[in-house]
């Protein structure tokens, strides 16, 4: 009896897909209404991000970037979800979700400053609805419930979207955030980018649940599993989740099935210790860029020339952004004392004086 119930639940979370690995449309009815320009823009962003990832890894190895969590493989998941958003929507990213906030409006050099550990990384341009990438896995989920409630109470026609990984779905805050969002019926979208590994731990060791999407059931909200290597499918489910949220139909959990080709972070992780090359090969075939490129080429919307343009643009932008990051003033202790409080308490006033004197020597 109980086994049957489990099968019934899991049967409801089949993977949603529009493009197969060959770039063929396998779900014509679900095709999103995107103009040729929009389709090309999606491809541009994915190619741009792939190049950025390669450059970031290289810059990290040269010591010109600090903390960096590679994103290659997750372009469809990251940029497909982001493409469905409005400029005023709020994004609460995890530490890997830098592409989404950059395409939302964070200048690239600030993303690099954040990587280096510089105060300039979080000094957001006014009106940019993002928060600093979250290092505490799960914290962004409960905060998203709050942001979404805030948007609802302010009468905004916007959603809050947040991202975590497959490991993050084991956290208490993951469950609490979804459950709060459900109980308050707020416009929130929770994206779990299931790239199969939390550092070295495979997703099978996180939970006996067959899908992460089904965890939505515990919060009484919608859950959907999508092919996270298929940008059209990812875009479509996010757009639908957004519309439902704004119609007052509540939050959605989206599980994107994806993969990271690189290591967990650049801080010494070696994926060959826990991943087989067979698995890497299997997922390389699913590459979101390959299939979307095939799809666009079939529609005569993409070619090598266009791709090279993006590659060159990305490289130039990154070069310029690194240069700009290099020119950011060196941080002083007085800088960080100055942003602790609106009005400095007595202990910090005293320390401000001490360090002002030190720094003026």
């Amino acid at each position, binding site marked *: 009896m109980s086994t049957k119930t489990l099968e019934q639940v899991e049967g409801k979370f089949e993977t949603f897909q529009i493009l197969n690995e060959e770039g063929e449309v396998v779900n014509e009815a679900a095709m999103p209404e995107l103009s040729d320009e929009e389709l090309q823009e999606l491809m541009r962003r994915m190619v741009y991000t792939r190049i950025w990832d390669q450059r970031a890894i290289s810059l990290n190895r040269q010591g010109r970037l600090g903390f960096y969590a590679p994103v290659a493989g997750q372009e469809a998941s990251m940029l497909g979800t982001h493409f469905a958003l409005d400029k005023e929507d709020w994004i609460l990213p995890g530490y890997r979700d830098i592409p989404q906030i950059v395409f939302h409006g964070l200048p690239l050099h600030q993303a690099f400053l954040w990587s280096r550990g510089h105060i300039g990384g*979080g000094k957001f341009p006014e009106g940019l609805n993002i*928060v*600093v990438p979250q290092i505490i896995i799960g*914290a962004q989920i*409960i905060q998203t419930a*709050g942001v979404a*409630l*805030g948007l609802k*109470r302010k009468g905004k026609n916007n959603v809050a979207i947040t991202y975590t990984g497959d490991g993050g779905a084991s956290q208490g805050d993951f469950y609490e955030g979804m459950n*709060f969002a459900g109980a308050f019926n707020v416009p929130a979208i929770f994206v779990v980018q299931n790239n199969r590994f939390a550092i070295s731990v495979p997703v099978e060791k996180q939970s006996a649940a067959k899908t992460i999407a089904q965890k939505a059931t515990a919060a009484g909200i919608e859950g959907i599993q999508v092919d996270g290597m298929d940008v059209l499918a990812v875009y479509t489910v996010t757009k639908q989740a957004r519309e439902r949220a704004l119609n007052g139909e509540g939050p959605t959990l989206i599980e994107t099935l994806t993969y990271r080709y690189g290591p967990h972070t650049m801080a010494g992780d070696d994926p060959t210790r826990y991943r087989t090359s067979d698995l890497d090969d299997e997922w390389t075939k699913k590459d979101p860029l390959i299939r979307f490129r095939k799809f666009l080429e079939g529609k005569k919307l993409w070619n090598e020339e266009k791709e090279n343009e993006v590659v060159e643009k990305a490289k130039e932008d990154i070069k310029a952004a690194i240069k700009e990051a290099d020119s950011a003033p060196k941080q002083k202790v007085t800088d960080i004392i100055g942003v602790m409080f609106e009005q400095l308490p007595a202990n910090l006033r005293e320390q401000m004086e001490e360090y002002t004197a030190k720094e003026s020597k």
Partner: protein
Amino acid sequence: MAQMTMIQAITDAMRNELKKNEDVLIFGEDVGQNGGVFRATEGLQKEFGEDRVFDTPLAESGIGGLAIGLGITGFRPVMEIQFFGFLFEVMDSVAGQMSRWRYRSGGTQTTPITVRSPFGGGVKTPEMHADSLEGLMAQTPGLKVVIPSTPYDAKGLLIASIRDNDPVVFLEHMKLYRSFRAEVPEEEYTIELGKADIKREGKDVTIITYGAMVHASLKAAEELEKDGVDVEVIDLMTVSPLDIDTIIASVEKTNRAIVVQEAQKQAGIAANVVAEITERAILSLEAPVLRVTAPDTVYPFAAMEDSWLPDHKDIVDAVNKVVNF
């Protein structure tokens, strides 16, 4: 003026702020229709509606996340943790998130949150209700920690806390909720955070304290007066940051001091006060600065609170020690 208990003064402060600023939101477990487990939010939902004063699911961590999200979207959240022993469930939101928000965004985003929570012993609560955990909060950069001991202070400090644009942890001692009434102005007023209050002037010994220990210290001071010892009692009111100026001025006058807290010796903030005095006024001291605290055990089983909690007799003993040093 009206005669109010501390809990009434707290309710009055929240009512005032709900009226004054529509961005003020009050939420937590049972704070809505029920009016709070201690009646602190009694009648507020009825007066201001469910959009302003509302219940949450039973999850402290989620409540902390809710407050942060509401804070960065323009609200002024006043969240309640039913008992401060449950802080550990929401430690990340308080000490890992809201305390850091202004800093981590380089000053571009703020979380103007007030965390209200009852704590404190002497009322025979079950486990994890009465623990004094203000020391953990006082060690967290980015937070202010406020602990009133009278109805008057509670109202003025809570209004100031709610209006502060940075997170404030506002701890309410359960034993003081209804233990006495005092005159509280009906109109609004604020008491500056980070300022101590001299509750009793004296010239022989300074007692630096806060929370329920303010009253134990005042009682001790009365007894000591009979023996000819004139005690000054400083109520810190804000335990982080400390009002160094008031503490040092008093110690320089009396040349003797003790620090009194309900928390265990290894906890609380007494050690910090002693360190500040040692750094700044050692040449004024005629005796070491002693501490009156609870023993370094887990908070006691309810039936033995009386023998575990520090009281006025412990304070009298400590004052006599520094006087006779």
